[in-house]
């Protein structure tokens, strides 16, 4: 579960990125986080992954209190949250298999477990036949599917997808969204940050809209017209 309560975040340069955000995303839920550039979406992601600490208020993510988390606990928090980025962030010199396997090794998994789990996850995202390729040999959609496999392999309770379709054409975008929906149907909490109105409307789910550091809309009634504010 992700829970923000009256969260503010100010940067040292004086920018107030969040001005009192409160929201709750239940286990197994699927939610979109939308909002214009500079509205505070990235700050929310960084707070969830422990890259930042809130200036005030409380943030709870999968049992961790982010306002008082210790540095050495952060890796363990991150193992409960898989992150998918717009620019994929894959390790170019590792094969598809190794890009996924090293995440399991990072948490100390046994080789036997890795040999069982990685092919299963690659099969889930449709990359089982390309396990020996390198990221540079894959298409954009395939690279994003690989990033999803990496986020998924340690069976996290939550996946945050930050503009997962931002670099993809519409057909590949739908593919990725369908994949994320499938994963959500298996019980993983899903928070998708996006700008793409079409996508939000094609997949009617809860939409949380952030603008100027505040939640301006939170509901199941589709894309919120923040542009017209």
């Amino acid at each position, binding site marked *: 579960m992700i829970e923000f309560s009256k969260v503010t975040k100010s940067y040292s340069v004086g920018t107030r990125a969040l001005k009192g955000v409160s929201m709750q995303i239940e286990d197994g839920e699927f939610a979109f986080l939308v909002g214009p550039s500079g509205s505070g979406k990235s700050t929310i992601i960084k707070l969830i992954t422990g*890259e930042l600490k809130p200036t005030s208020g409380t943030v709870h993510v999968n049992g961790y209190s982010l306002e008082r988390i210790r540095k*050495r606990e952060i*890796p363990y928090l*991150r193992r409960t949250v898989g992150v998918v980025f717009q620019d994929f962030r894959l*390790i170019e010199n590792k094969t598809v298999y190794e890009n996924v396997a090293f*995440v399991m090794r*990072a948490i100390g998994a*046994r080789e036997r477990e890795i040999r069982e789990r990685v092919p299963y996850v690659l099969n889930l995202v449709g990359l089982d036949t390309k396990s020996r390729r390198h990221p540079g040999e894959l298409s954009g959609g395939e690279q994003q599917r690989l990033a999803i496999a*990496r986020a998924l392999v340690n069976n996290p309770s939550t996946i945050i997808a930050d503009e997962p379709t931002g670099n993809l054409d519409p057909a590949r975008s739908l593919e990725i969204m369908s994949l994320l929906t499938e994963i959500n149907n298996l019980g993983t909490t899903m928070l998708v940050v996006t700008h793409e109105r079409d996508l939000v409307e094609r997949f009617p789910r809860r939409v949380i809209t952030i603008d100027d550091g505040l939640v301006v809309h939170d509901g199941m009634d589709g894309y919120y017209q923040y542009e017209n504010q």
Partner: protein
Amino acid sequence: MGIISMKISNIGYLIKEGIRGIFLHGFMSFAAVCVTVACLLIVGSFSCLTYNVSLMVEDLNKTNEITVIIDENLPYAEALSVGTDINLVDNVLKATFKSREEALEEFLKEHEGDEAFEGVMAEDLRHRYIVVLEDNSKLEQTVEDIGQIPGVAKISADYELAEGFSTLENVLSIASVAVIVVLLVVSLLIISNTVKLAMYDRRDEIAIMKMVGATNGFIRLPYVVEGFILGMLGAAAAFGLEWLLYDWMLRELDKVDTLNMFNFVPFEQLLIPMVTIFAGAGLFVGVVGSWTSIRKFMDV
């Protein structure tokens, strides 16, 4: 138990990753080894040179002899026995007897062709001992001790030369230690910067590892293994080159007669200290360099 065994199962992988990293980032690895070799060669060569120079000064120091003149009234046999007492004095390395006849022969040789000394007889000179000291800095005390031996009439010593040698030895040892320390620090900084550059090359990879929940130890170990291997490779190459270079220099010096006065010790005599210095520096540079360089990229 589970966690421990899982971590042990990872060690093999992490070591393999470290070795793989050397080949994956071939150019940076090559640069790090080259910088290590160059820096260690400079430090090693200077250390060899200063060691040899200090040995030479030490040898030169021993050529500063003092002359102990024996009382002219002492018969030959008694003059000979004074030598036993002189040899017992602390700081005396060697006392060699020179009879008045031998002294005359030497005197005439020195003043050959000089008419003023033509009439000098052995009786005009006295028996003497040529004394070599262990440590010239204690010259004054030693002269005082020898002066108290019965039968010793006069002692002739070059205080200025002795003082000069002592000063030279002190200056040389302080200067060499200072230069070696400075060279070592500069070398470490250069090598550490090269390692940092290699780490900078991989900052994205490190950030990804952090993002997926890898612990600092998991991220660090391959880099430390890599640093260790590169450091030791650099040290081994520098050591081999130093040996070749040193032997070549000795052979070249041997060919020039006028340079025979420089008595360099063979490299075999320097083997243990050189291996220690090179291996220590290689280990320090590789492990500590990569450990500290990676720290700044871990804060994600």
